């Protein structure tokens, strides 16, 4: 029987190599795979590229990876948040590279990678500094920027419930980037609050079908 559950967080992230690109779900403090991130910090792969909407706050989440010096580059729409001190410190000392991407373009580039598309024209960012150096085109009288698909080696995700096939549902606004990242990563690893039996999830309400998901780990309740 197909069972995508792994026994623990450490095992599920142990093969992330130095230099890997890693998508990390979440928006603000919602939908962040805190336990998987802690496991990556413990494993300690270096020279990571982290792709995430924010750069964490305080000492947890993406901030922890930054603090541990594991990250060379961040691809991100909003690295500046209350308490994003670790990112700001690295940025001000030129110790980290930042690729700033408008949030919708960031999500859409992931979707393009997950959907097997070679790129897309978007009006977002046209005529701004974030289109510098990019191919542009007038389409129906409107300026557009050509954006490329954005894939990653791994995605670290957070969901509410999973069944053994990796079908996922989320809780309220914790959904955010998690489903689209699941489609764009070669290996999608998810921490979930609950494992449920096959057939328990409403087939009309599954948000991430299991074929996008490679590994699932149950998060320990605090």
């Amino acid at each position, binding site marked *: 029987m197909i069972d995508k559950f792994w026994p623990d967080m450490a095992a599920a992230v142990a093969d992330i190599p130095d230099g890997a690109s890693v998508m990390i779900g979440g928006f603000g403090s919602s939908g962040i795979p805190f336990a998987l991130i802690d496991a990556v910090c413990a494993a300690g792969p270096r020279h990571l590229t982290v792709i995430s909407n924010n750069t964490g706050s305080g000492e947890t989440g993406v901030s922890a990876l930054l603090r541990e010096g594991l990250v060379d580059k961040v691809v991100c*729409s909003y690295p500046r948040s209350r308490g994003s001190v670790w990112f700001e410190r690295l940025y001000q000392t030129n110790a980290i590279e930042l690729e700033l991407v408008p*949030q919708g373009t960031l999500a859409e580039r992931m979707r393009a990678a997950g959907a097997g598309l070679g790129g897309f024209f978007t*009006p977002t960012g046209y005529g701004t500094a974030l289109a510098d150096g990019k191919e542009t085109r007038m389409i129906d009288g409107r300026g557009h920027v050509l954006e490329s698909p954005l894939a990653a080696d791994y995605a670290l995700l957070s969901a509410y419930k999973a069944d053994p096939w990796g079908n996922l549902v989320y809780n309220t606004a914790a959904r955010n980037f998690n489903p689209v990242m699941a489609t764009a990563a070669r290996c999608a690893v998810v921490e979930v609050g609950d494992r449920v039996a096959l057939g328990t999830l409403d087939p009309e309400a599954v948000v991430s079908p299991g074929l996008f998901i490679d590994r699932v780990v149950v998060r320990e309740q605090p």
Partner: protein
Amino acid sequence: MSLPRLTTHEMAARLAADIPDGAYVNLGIGMPVIVANHVPAGRQVIYHSENGILGVGRSPEPGEDHDPDLINAAKDPVTLIEGGCYFDTAESFAMMRGGHLDLAVLGAFQVSATGDLANWATHDATYPPAVGGAMDLAVGARTVYVLMRHTTKDGTPKLLETCDLPLTGTACVSRVYTDLGVFEIDRDNASAHVIERFAGVSAHALQSVTGFKLVE
């Protein structure tokens, strides 16, 4: 010369008066969020939040049980109204970029005479730039209103011939609501029509703190 200026809440209320019943609206971080508190009674407005919510409701009361995952674009706790729903970021921005929101209300550093918007980056290179969903709203909402003070703290106009700060989008702003008046951008003529001058603000005084031509 000291001008009589609206308070933040008065500005928000003035803009709120112009939001039509039944509109789908995204309120930007900062001053725009306050607009929701001032929509006239009897008008139903559905608020969108970029992180995947349609039907954003009030903030939970202090001490009230709330879902820690349920936050808005400003990362503050919110609730969901009846009839609201959740979706992922890709779909949320499809709504924004695809012209499905009737209105976005954004804050701004500067707005130009042709409706260019600058609201995401300053000239400070040591501070990390952050853009979030601002560029998508600027190009995607059917209508973009800006809510901002008329001048910077030191009195420099924020309505300018040309923005000198990095742009968020070009030719995207329809109206600007400030603490001195309401202005309809006339892109073709690189000017603005004054919809309203608030009490005690003369046409001359208003023009003197505005960087492009106002038409009464």
